[in-house]
């Protein structure tokens, strides 16, 4: 019973780690994406740089994912 509860809490923790970092990345990306599209609308050469800049906040989700994986497979 206690083990099942602990497994459930770990799963919730893992979900929060991925979910919150996803929301954080989305908040960061909304402005960067809008600015990148604005720059691209004026000059198509910004496509590569714009795309790169837009996905930079995604790295925070990878941290969340790593934390989630550690929670699920180490503990």
């Amino acid at each position, binding site marked *: 019973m206690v083990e099942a509860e602990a497994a459930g809490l770990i799963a919730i923790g893992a979900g929060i780690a991925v979910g919150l970092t996803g929301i954080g990345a989305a908040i960061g990306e*909304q*402005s960067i994406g809008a600015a990148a*599209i*604005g720059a691209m609308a*004026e000059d198509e050469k910004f496509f590569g740089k714009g795309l790169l800049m837009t996905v930079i906040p995604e790295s925070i989700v990878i941290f969340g994912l790593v934390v989630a994986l550690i929670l699920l497979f180490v503990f």
Partner: protein
Amino acid sequence: MGLFSAPAYAYITARVRARKKKLIPRDTYPKLLNMELPEIIRFIEETEYKKDVDELSARFRGIDLLEHALNRNLGASYRKLIEISRGQVNYLVTEYMRRWDIWNIKTILRGKYYGASEEEILDYVVSAGELHYPDLESMARRESVEAVIDSLQNRPCYQVLKDYEGGMLNRIEDELDKFYYARLLDAIGDSPGEKLFLKFLQTEIDIKNLKTLFRLKRAGVDREGVQNAIIPGGLELRGPDLIRLLGLSFSELIHSLDGYSYWSSIADIVSEEGTSLTDVETKLDAYLMNFASRISHYYPLSILPVLDYILHKKIEVDNLRIISRGKELKLSNDVIQNNLVM
């Protein structure tokens, strides 16, 4: 700025920064001064004005072609800003651009008052505000000042225009300016960026009032005449200070300006004997442009970068016009250069 309004600002500021990069660099103007008019037109044809010059080249030639292309491009660039902005920034840009409606209404009223033809009037309008080119054409077709005013019954500025009782237009023009600034100042919110925008507008009002003071005092206009032309809402020139300046003569005025932040930009060229009003106005415009450039970096996601672009675009068009008109009139390079805002 709310979480959800940030992307709207990010989009428009990225676009205006990219557009500002495409403006003619400052160091190009001396090169243009060494060119003849046909070369200048060819140069302009290779810049952002290409489409406008190409499309108008069938109807106009030489300096007229350039004037129309510059006006059209300016109007289109400003209108584009209204189209691509959203939310509060769109509201502010739209309100700011109403100055072109006021400019166009004044141009058409003056044209009608002095009996100019429809074509002559339309040469000077810039369709950048709420009034589109067809609206302006239909206004310019009206036969009298009163008929033009009647055609504006559904526009907000009619509440000022309806008081026109015939005769000179100066009074109604001053009232239109006051109406424009009062409305614009009301539209400004209380975010940090908008507070700086407010400061910019107040500075702009000060500079306009200063120009009015210089011009009217030089012409010997009485206190009441100057007071009618003064726009309320300035930053430094306000209250008892402004009332004191209104009562001074031209020579007293230039001795009283020491201490205002604008003075340092014009101190070298102002004297009792031979002050060139054109030079003073050029220096004051440069002061305003530099002020806008300085504050445009304070809050990157705000109306300020948009304002900075708007001003630089206007200055570019004015400078190109000054160079081409100067070349056409065979003015010396020094005279032309002194009139450029850089």
